[in-house]
């Protein structure tokens, strides 16, 4: 799409200057752009808007392929929203950065001291420096945590603040994020992408690097470990793939080399926290949590939470695990605190705040309350407790009745409300619809406690609103992110996350333990993928036969098609389907077939399988390499675009199915070439082998186990060979004689054929023997016993005996029995693997009085 206005200087500084309203980052208060902006914009301008648009799209492609997403709660259909990146960064001069950096450090110091006091001696409250209602009325104050802070130099390990520049050119703090600040991973990914799409400009502009911050983050987390200080086990605790910033949890886990866990992956025993891994329980020393504090321990906080670990706070109390940030730290996110920070800064530090907060009046005080009520029209009114859907309202935008309601709410519980000045933030150039336009911006900064001091990420996550003159800047509201370039006086040396071992120091190779949840997901990635492949291959065969039968009008073709249609129902498990149906459906099977392709809500449909594969893979996003993830994304996205998003007919479908097979093969190829043959691989491949065996058997039971007349038999045999990608090998081996015993020889018993049942069972036996387990004497485990029996029964059979039968019977009874028994054993095996390895799936329940019946 060409933009009409496209000319050489439509994105330059001069065009931009005509668009400005209030304070702008590029111009400050001058009539001339700031020199560092001018240089940057000149470089952009020489590129031209068309080329810049290409770079922008390139950035979006990279982000999508890397799986950078932001989930929107409550949007299950459109679960992952692509992360948007604007190619124009926020530039900050090194002089200004010094001011911001010092201000943020001071603020982190101050908040750390306040946190320590609130969960310690509470002197601030007792002396009246901080009103008791302000703290006790905030949901972030968790009284079980009082006295639970451990002996650390700093309690607020990680801190993040949202900054914006007011009309006077000064940076203001809008709010503080203290419990589980998000965004640092997105900032890093933005930088990685920017360095790739604007390499020249990035290289020429001396920009501070971000990797040093992550090195400090690691050091900061190691510092707080209560045990194993040499090499503590650190985990990232996530609420799971439905969380809006799940991508970042997985990304940081992979980047920092930590295990990504959900509450169910951890357990408390003997006063310690343990990771439930495939190889048994592993002690955990530090938890970087991304779960809100009140959800972290159902025993002491919210009992209905399924995201936490029962007994976790007790472990903290005993000093056996460190949590970053500690439970209860969300008490600092109370916006009413902003009104008291200047006083507390003088009290603790004998300093004035270096970065002012946005002007805030807490209604818990009489004079302030009266001020807020009188000036309600010009203020933003917020509850002190953040709740979904109530981010604060601008008084001036309310109707008379709404305003009265708000007034009476404030008067009823004044300590729960604040009034805040409505600030117009500065604007910043953004590339929107092929043009550079001013947008209001918010900058999120990140700090980590490092020894005695705080270290600030030299950069951050800048976000702008999509619409002009919109001050609500958030990802939930569909904002756009930007990289933040802090200019360095001289080039930064690259910092590597790798630590250098001392000379001759031997290092043990320790793979991070695989959590049982990850193992579970890997197993199902294998199963769903294989099921998708089996269904796809069979469907292709059905479609070919459908076309042939329609063209030839031959009764044998029609009969064979019916066998295949019934088989399709059986293999996909989508009864009644073609099994017990009207003649009509068998004569025009297309609507049912298309439903089995497209209907995501139909269990067993191709789309449902692909979706399940994608969900399972996404749940362990941290385990995949970039390339592998791209192949996962390709499978899902192409299917979505080409099949789900389109009206398709049976003529186009085979092409899409071919494409799907190619996608699947790419994934299996990548994984088999890049995964070490450790637990993760064993789990995934066991899932695949198990599913392939089950699908093969289901296919045989509804085709080969039934007796057909010879002519039909030949067609059915051929269809089965095609559907299992085995026709070529069969022909090479047995030439043109097509016979049931020979087909069985190949598909059932040939251990060298990767599409035979024997091959699957053989591989399964090897995998199961290699899985970690607690050995009890020399006894075989339940899984070993089951696979041994299935495999032995198969090897002991003789294909000629299996296909002997009385003239009258409609099925090969011995063959059917073998298939039936093997299926039953494999199902048991699947259950047994789940019991032995997926211990996270055990559900917990609250046990307490359900009623007060037995009380007076």
């Amino acid at each position: 799409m060409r933009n009409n206005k496209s000319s050489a200087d439509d994105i330059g500084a001069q065009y931009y200057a005509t668009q400005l309203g209030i304070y702008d980052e590029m111009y400050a208060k001058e009539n001339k752009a700031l020199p560092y902006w001018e240089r940057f914009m000149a470089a952009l301008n020489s590129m031209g808007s068309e080329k810049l648009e290409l770079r922008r799209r390139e950035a979006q492609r990279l982000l999508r392929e890397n799986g950078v997403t932001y989930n929107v709660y409550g949007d299950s259909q459109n679960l992952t929203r692509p992360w948007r990146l604007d190619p124009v960064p926020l530039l900050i001069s090194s002089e200004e950065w010094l001011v911001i950096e010092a201000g943020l450090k001071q603020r982190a110091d101050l908040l750390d001291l306040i946190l320590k006091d609130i969960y310690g001696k509470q002197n601030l409250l007792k002396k009246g420096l901080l009103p008791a209602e302000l703290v006790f009325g905030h949901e972030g104050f968790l009284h079980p945590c009082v006295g639970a802070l451990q002996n650390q130099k700093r309690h607020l390990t990680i801190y993040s603040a949202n900054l914006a520049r007011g009309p006077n050119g000064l940076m203001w703090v809008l709010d503080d994020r203290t419990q589980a600040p998000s965004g640092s991973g997105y900032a890093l990914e933005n930088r990685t992408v920017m360095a790739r799409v604007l390499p020249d400009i990035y290289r020429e502009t001396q920009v501070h690097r971000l990797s040093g911050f992550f090195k400090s983050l690691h050091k900061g987390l190691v510092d707080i470990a209560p045990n194993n200080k040499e090499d503590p086990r650190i985990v990232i605790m996530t609420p799971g793939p439905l969380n809006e910033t799940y991508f970042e949890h997985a990304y940081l886990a992979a980047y920092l080399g930590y295990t990504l866990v959900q509450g169910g992956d951890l357990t408390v025993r003997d006063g310690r926290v343990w990771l439930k891994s495939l190889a048994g329980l592993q002690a955990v020393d530090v938890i970087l949590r991304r779960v809100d504090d009140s959800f972290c321990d159902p025993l002491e906080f919210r009992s209905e939470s399924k995201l936490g670990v029962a007994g976790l706070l007790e472990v903290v109390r005993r000093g056996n695990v460190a949590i970053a940030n500690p439970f209860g730290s969300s008490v600092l996110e109370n916006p009413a605190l902003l009104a008291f920070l200047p006083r507390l800064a003088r009290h603790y530090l004998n300093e004035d705040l270096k970065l002012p907060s946005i002007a805030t009046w807490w209604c818990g005080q009489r004079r302030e309350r009266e001020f807020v009520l009188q000036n309600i029209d010009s203020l933003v009114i917020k509850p002190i407790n953040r709740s979904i859907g109530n981010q604060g309202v601008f008084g001036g935008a309310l109707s008379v009745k709404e305003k009265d309601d708000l007034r009476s709410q404030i008067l009823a519980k004044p300590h729960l409300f604040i009034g805040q000045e409505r600030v117009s933030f500065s604007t910043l150039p953004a590339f929107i619809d092929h043009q550079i336009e001013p947008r209001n911006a918010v900058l999120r900064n990140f700090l980590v406690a490092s020894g005695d001091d705080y270290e600030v990420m030299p950069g951050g996550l800048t976000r702008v609103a999509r619409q002009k003159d919109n001050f609500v800047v958030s990802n939930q509201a569909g904002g756009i992110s930007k990289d933040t370039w802090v200019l360095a006086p001289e080039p930064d040396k690259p910092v590597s996350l790798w630590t250098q071992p001392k000379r001759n120091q031997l290092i043990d190779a320790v793979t991070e333990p695989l959590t049982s949840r990850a193992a579970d997901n890997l197993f199902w990635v294998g199963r769903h993928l294989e099921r998708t492949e089996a269904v796809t291959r069979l469907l292709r065969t059905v479609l070919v036969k459908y076309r042939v039968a329609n063209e030839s009008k031959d009764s044998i073709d029609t009969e064979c098609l019916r066998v295949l249609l019934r088989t399709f129902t059986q293999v996909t498990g989508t009864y009644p389907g073609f099994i017990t149906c009207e003649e009509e459906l068998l004569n025009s099977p297309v609507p049912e077939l298309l439903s089995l392709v497209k209907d995501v809500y139909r269990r067993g449909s191709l789309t449902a399988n692909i979706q399940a594969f994608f969900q399972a893979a996404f749940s362990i996003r941290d385990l995949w390499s970039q390339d592998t993830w791209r192949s996962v994304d390709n499978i899902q996205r192409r299917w979505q675009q080409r099949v789900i998003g389109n009206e398709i007919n049976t003529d186009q479908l085979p092409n899409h199915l071919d494409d799907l097979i190619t996608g699947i093969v790419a994934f299996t190829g990548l994984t088999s070439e890049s995964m070490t043959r450790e637990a993760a691989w064993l789990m995934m491949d066991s899932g695949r082998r198990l599913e392939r065996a089950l699908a093969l058997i289901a296919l045989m039971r509804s085709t080969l186990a039934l007796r057909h007349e010879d002519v039909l038999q030949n067609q059915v045999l051929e269809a089965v060979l095609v559907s299992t990608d085995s026709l070529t090998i069969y022909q090479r081996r047995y030439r043109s004689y097509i016979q049931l015993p020979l087909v069985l020889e190949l598909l059932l018993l040939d251990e060298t054929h990767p599409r035979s049942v024997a091959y699957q069972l053989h591989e399964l036996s090897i995998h199961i023997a290699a899985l970690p387990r607690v050995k009890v004497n020399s006894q075989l485990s339940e899984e070993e016993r089951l696979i041994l029996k299935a495999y032995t029964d198969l090897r002991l059979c003789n294909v000629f005996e299996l296909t002997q039968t009385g003239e009258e019977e409609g099925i090969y009874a011995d063959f059917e029995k073998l298939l039936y028994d093997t299926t039953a054993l494999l199902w048991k095996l699947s259950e047994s693997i789940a019991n032995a390895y997926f211990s996270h799936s055990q559900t917990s329940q609250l046990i307490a009085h359900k009623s007060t019946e037995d009380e007076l």
Partner: protein
Amino acid sequence: MKYRITHSTLYHYSQPVGLCQNEARLQPRNFWRQHCHTSYFDITPEPIDFQERLDYFGNRVTYFAVQKPHTKLNVTAISEVTIFPKQNVLELFNQIAWESVRNILQGLPLQGLSQSQSQQSQVLWQNQDYAQELFDAKQFLLDSPMVKVTPELAEYARISFQPNRPLVDVVHDLMARIYNDFTYDPTFTTIATPLSDVLNFRRGVCQDFAHLAIGCLRAYGIAARYISGYVETLPEPGKQRLTGADASHAWFSVYIPNSGWLDFDPTNNTIPLDQHITLAWGRDFSDVTPLKGIAFGGGQHVLSVSVDVLRIE
């Protein structure tokens, strides 16, 4: 008066529980009205991990974990307690009007007091213990998880809060009204029944009545807390005392400056004296749940509780 209290909770599970973590507030705390001589647990299966501490409100709390598979869990707490039958001595402030108490708690200047009383209160303000006491009371002024002040609660309480009425009278009146207006009905409520339903249907149990009174008091700026404990029940004349037929009980307490906390039992319309044994106090039931746990596995569970309050001296 000395009592021995035996409180047993038995869980039966339909499937084995592999691990459970529990928190118990079953050991009576000490304070001016009560002394706990001994208190110990008898838990089967025996917990591997067992730890006692004091919680934020000064209650005795016990954490224990059973780490081996079990289908039955029996938690018994046995305590011996002496109760001293005296109430607060309400010399100076027992006639203090509820508005004055509200103002003190809000840190406002006192109204309606004579010069000398006002001076005395100034002296008190500077007293460390008194400041601490006031600070502690403030925890019990605000909404808590199970008690949220609503206009309906305030409306119900309004008749009791006559202007300038002494707070003690206000609470007496409120307690009597709850006792008369509400029907004791164990079939009506569960732990999850909201206070608004209790108020609408005028039914509930001791816990609901305590929450109701607390909500009414907080609506007028009075600090009130929830007490979990036991009450001695005497057999009807001529009948034999039944062991284990007692139950846990709940009532509430009101803060009166310079006198401390005064207990009221709205279920029985009495001022607890020597038959009420206190376990723990908090903002509401959720702070002082006698026994709760998180169990892994277990299927369905059935729970039975028996309480025995035996007067031994």
